[in-house]
């Protein structure tokens, strides 16, 4: 598994764990609003990503994200 795939796998695991969603209930094209996360869950996810990947995204970066795939691409870009 190359680094991109590893990042994708980790992101999926974290979304699944923190938002309590089954792995097969979302995909790269899933809009973030379809994750039905409230604001605190989104913030918790953000903090988890920062800790896991040891990178900080600006909050402007985050508001440009629309799908799960956008999250993965952002982390891949910053890692």
């Amino acid at each position, binding site marked *: 598994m190359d680094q991109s795939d590893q990042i994708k796998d980790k992101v999926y695991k974290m979304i699944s764990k923190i938002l309590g969603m089954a792995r097969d209930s979302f995909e790269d094209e899933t809009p973030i*609003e*379809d*994750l*039905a996360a*409230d*604001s*605190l869950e*989104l*913030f*918790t996810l*953000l*903090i*988890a990503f920062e*800790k896991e990947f040891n990178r900080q995204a600006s*909050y*402007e970066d*985050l*508001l440009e994200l629309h799908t799960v795939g956008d999250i993965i691409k952002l982390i891949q870009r910053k890692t």
Partner: protein
Amino acid sequence: MFLKIPKHSEFAARRTRLYSAVLKKEAKKEETRWGRIVAEGALKMMLEGVSGFAVRPGDITISSSFSGKPFFSFNTSSTSGRQVPERFDFSVSHSDGVVGVSVSDRFAEGWVGFDIERIRKIPNEACEALLTDKEKKYLKRFAFSERMESEMLFWCIKESFLKAIGTGLRVHPKHVEIRQVGKKILISYRGEDQNARINWGKYNRSYIWSRVLIQSCLV
């Protein structure tokens, strides 16, 4: 199915509507979209109350600013030139089956931010990130269950404030500091005390809500 929560005077007085969504698990993803529908419904009722005439579906268009703050505009062609005040601000929040929308008169009350959260333990890492050192020190005095609720209240108020000023999570919640002085809650933002009106409460013993009114919107 979207059920309106029976009228609570504290919500009615603050032009806030709560709706309980009885959603099947697979429909939970619709919760966010329902928030928009609820906001339109609440705005419609508020505007009818102020303007004195019926507001039809399609008269209101809800959009988001570049920062994500929602706003509405009126389709003036559908109102046949009648002057409809567009001085209202509103804020929407949803959490685990409850959607709430709060409306304010910007001229009389200021900009509004509203947040509702199901009461649960905030993960330690998120708590560590969102609370300032003074807030952590203050909250340590509480026993576990009280602390859990207080931490959630602090989150709600920070989120409400950031929504009211129009930045949302574009600004890190740690830039907002909450102090409790007796029964009064005070907010400072980037070190400056804010002239904010804060209301908060519990709904159904399972949710905490807060509503913040502030005179200045940054975006």
